[in-house]
């Protein structure tokens, strides 16, 4: 009997249907719409870039194993079975590479009025980015 699991990833909240909460899977054909990767004979692909992966390990009877996928992409994957929720984080490799490229990572966030602003809106200006908190 499949159960619904909440998948937190890339700032998104998606619901997936899984057979086993201890080993969450998704249908292979949802890989692209959910996570932006494609499974091809050469491995996991995004555009022209492919990462080799043991496909027998990755795809089983229940579908594509998210834990194996996360390992292949070097992304952390943690779950809470009681509340059927999983969190797929960003890879330190991707984050590190992006920062070392010195291109300031773009982001879009709301102000108090709910209006969205992006860092890229300020292109052409020097920007002092200040992260602060009330705590």
């Amino acid at each position, binding site marked *: 009997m499949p159960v619904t699991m909440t998948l937190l990833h890339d700032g998104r909240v998606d619901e997936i249907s899984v057979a086993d909460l201890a080993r969450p899977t998704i249908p292979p054909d949802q890989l692209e719409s959910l996570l932006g990767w494609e499974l091809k004979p050469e491995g996991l692909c995004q555009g022209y870039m492919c990462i080799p992966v043991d496909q027998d390990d990755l795809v089983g009877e229940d579908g594509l194993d998210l834990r194996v996928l996360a390992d292949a992409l070097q992304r952390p994957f943690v779950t809470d079975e009681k509340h059927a929720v999983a969190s797929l984080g960003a890879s330190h490799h991707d984050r590190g590479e992006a920062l070392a490229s010195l291109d300031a990572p773009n982001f879009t966030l709301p102000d108090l009025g709910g209006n969205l602003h992006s860092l890229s809106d300020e292109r052409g200006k020097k920007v*002092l980015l*200040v992260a602060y908190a009330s705590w």
Partner: protein
Amino acid sequence: MYEELADEGFTVITVGIERSPDDARPWIEKARPQHPSLIDIEHLVPDLYGMINVPTVVWIDEEGRIARPNDASFASNRFKLLTGLDSKRHLRRLRAWVRGEAPALTPSEVRKHQDLPTAADQEARAEFTLAWWLSREGHDDDAEPHYVRAGELAPHDITIRRGSMRTRGLNPMGLAFLKLAIKSVLTRNPLYRPLKDSP
């Protein structure tokens, strides 16, 4: 600072790392800033920039390139005694950079000063995201082990540890923070990490 330099092709973007917009509202309404004042309840900016405490400042040039990486600097010297950080030095450098009187850092200097996230840092952030979601869904008790795990994975990540205190029923200005601060001294894991030997 913003008013002084706004005509010189400069802006400030503040990002409040908060539980909800209401936590930041009194601050923002009091300051009435003319620049973007954003709210980041998902800790997106700390994740993207590898920030482990606040305040953290980053300089970004006209082309969107990082001109000076994560640095700890307050807007005033109110906490100087506690933090050992002199905000005046930072403001002086910033002013000179904006006015084109002095360069920021060279790309190789920026890279040298970057502290890139580790696998454990990112796993801590994934645990925190999970805990945060559970808290907001009303499952504080079940969120707790995930907050604890996040703290074990990245004990230096104050954004996670102190930022989650209120949600966890702890006082970020009280004993819980004092313990964190004392431990950071004992383990030589400083709470604030200003750029080392920066020019």
